[in-house]
């Protein structure tokens, strides 16, 4: 659903052809299991990206704390899974915790706007990260937690195929929900707030409520994304969910196109594929010439700069 003008935006046939070709190439080059594991990551990042698209793209609020909400979901899932709580019970709890965190992070929006509010979400994210480090009895602090595989009743998602399946089903559900929200009265309220808060308020829209709901729903999606991510990666530690992740999610949404739901998927593809491509390329270089992590970061930054300059609407944008 198009966020910008309310007209439907379907990724065109060409776009789908490109995705299919890339997927086929990935399977052919990397092997089926590896490609499926990466597909699980793409779908999971896309879920988290949808949360950012709701907050940033639809409602127009700059959130620098989305990574912390992902962390809340991931830690909730890890802690519950370690205590043997089945996923059908713990996933809703992780989503609820992410939504609750989103509600908390959105409280300053009642008084602050724009940059000041962005700063408050930054503070929120840093406080959450520190809390995850310090609450050692629950989170084991900086040492992190090992996360068992996802268990739904008797069925355990251990193979890459099962993980990709779960992630894609979750993404499909999240996508349908976002489509409904964006097309509803609430979605129109979000876009009105994004374009002009005063005009939106004058038109009878409860601006504070619209912002809060964007954060609650976006936070719930982040919680879901974080919970699935914890299972796929198998290990959570506080520094994974720091400020860098919040920015990575913003970048994901922006690279893909924050105003379109499909931007989350495009951005997730780039965010997952780029490091893989870079590490493949660096392996070809003589060893000791350059650090792979540094090149990866520099390339990410360059892609972001180029996209912001040349394609401000993102990959899914029409401009």
């Amino acid at each position, binding site marked *: 659903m198009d966020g910008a003008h309310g007209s439907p935006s379907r990724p065109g046939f060409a776009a789908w052809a490109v995705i299919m070709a890339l997927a086929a190439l990935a399977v052919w080059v990397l092997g089926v299991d590896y490609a499926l594991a990466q597909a699980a990551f793409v779908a999971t990042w896309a879920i988290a990206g949808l949360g950012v698209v709701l907050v*940033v793209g639809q409602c127009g609020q*700059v959130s620098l704390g989305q990574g912390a909400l992902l962390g809340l979901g991931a830690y909730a899932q890890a802690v519950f899974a370690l205590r043997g709580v089945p996923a059908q019970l713990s996933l809703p709890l992780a989503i609820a915790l992410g939504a609750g965190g989103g509600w908390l992070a959105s409280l*300053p929006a009642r*008084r*602050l706007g*724009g*940059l*000041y509010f*962005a*700063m*408050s979400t*930054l*503070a*929120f994210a*840093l*406080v959450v990260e*520190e809390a995850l*480090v*310090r609450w050692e009895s629950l989170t084991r602090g900086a040492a992190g937690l090992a996360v068992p595989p996802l268990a739904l009743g008797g069925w355990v998602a251990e193979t890459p195929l099962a993980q990709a399946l779960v992630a894609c089903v979750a993404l499909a559900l999240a996508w349908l929900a976002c489509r409904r929200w964006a097309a509803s009265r609430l979605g129109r309220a979000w876009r009105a707030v994004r374009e002009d808060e005063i005009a939106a308020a004058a038109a009878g829209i409860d601006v504070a409520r619209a912002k809060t709901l964007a954060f609650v729903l976006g936070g719930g999606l982040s919680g879901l994304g974080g919970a699935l991510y914890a299972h796929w990666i198998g290990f959570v530690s506080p520094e994974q969910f720091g*400020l860098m992740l919040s*920015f990575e999610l*913003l*970048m994901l949404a*922006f690279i893909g196109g924050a105003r379109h739901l499909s931007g989350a998927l495009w951005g997730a593809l780039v965010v997952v594929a780029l490091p893989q491509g870079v590490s493949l390329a660096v392996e070809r270089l003589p060893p*000791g*010439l*350059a*650090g792979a*992590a*540094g*090149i*990866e*970061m*520099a*390339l*990410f*930054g*360059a*892609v*972001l*700069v180029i996209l*912001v*300059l040349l394609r*401000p609407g993102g990959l899914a944008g029409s401009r």
Partner: protein
Amino acid sequence: MTTVTLIQVFASGVATGCVYGLVALSFVLIYKATGAVSFMQGELLMLGAFVVLALHEAAGLPLGAAVTLGVAALAACGALLERTVLRRTLGPAHLTALLLTFGLGMVMRGTVGAVPAASHAMHRLPLPFAGASVRLGGATLAAEHLVVIAATALLAGALTLFFRRTRAGLALRACSENAGVAALMGVSVAGMHTLAWALGAGLAAVAGVLLAPVTFIHPNMGLVALKAFPAAVLGGMTSLPGALAGGVFIGVVEALAGLALPEGMKDVVPYLLMLAVLLLFPGGFAAGLRGRP
């Protein structure tokens, strides 16, 4: 906790706070003049420290020359970035400027991190006064801290003179207050934006050089800039003296929190303070000083 300990902790807090304050100053300077939120001040700080280190260690320049040249190089780098890249995102689009500067910061951090010599070892800038200490009454103060404080005071004085006594400073202030009117008065707004970015990058580089004796020089040293945001918010986001004062305040509070509060609180206190200030005084403590850079 004796008075002597308190004085020593206080001095180290002021010194760290001076670095926060300088970074916050550069951030606010750019924000006021161009409306752009710069998330790459930390990376400019890191780059400045590395450039000075490279000029001193690898090129063999004396320290004074290396610092002067390094800061000038960073100022030129800031001006160049403004001319080529940042100029295209003028205006109130916070998110665009934020992502653009963050991307540029990633490029800087990644590039420095990809150089094995820079990323595989911690570096220290060899200073003549490193490790020395001054006894004042009963308290022992580290020479590095005193030098940082003195250098910041000098820099603040020079900046005040620049803003009050020079035509360029006046033009920059006019541009920050009202770009449209400044343009009508014959001020080149685009030129002032370039100047603001050059000054901002140069200030960040100075902060990097001042931070170098306190911590090591490494690719992630730019993280210190995260403490500059609370400092800038405390100062009301638009006040230059407020930013500097906010930085010193954050530094002192952080040092005292490390002394008095349980471990870990030290790192959170600046952000809790920032949240409190944002909610209670949305205009910042220094709202009264607004408009007087």
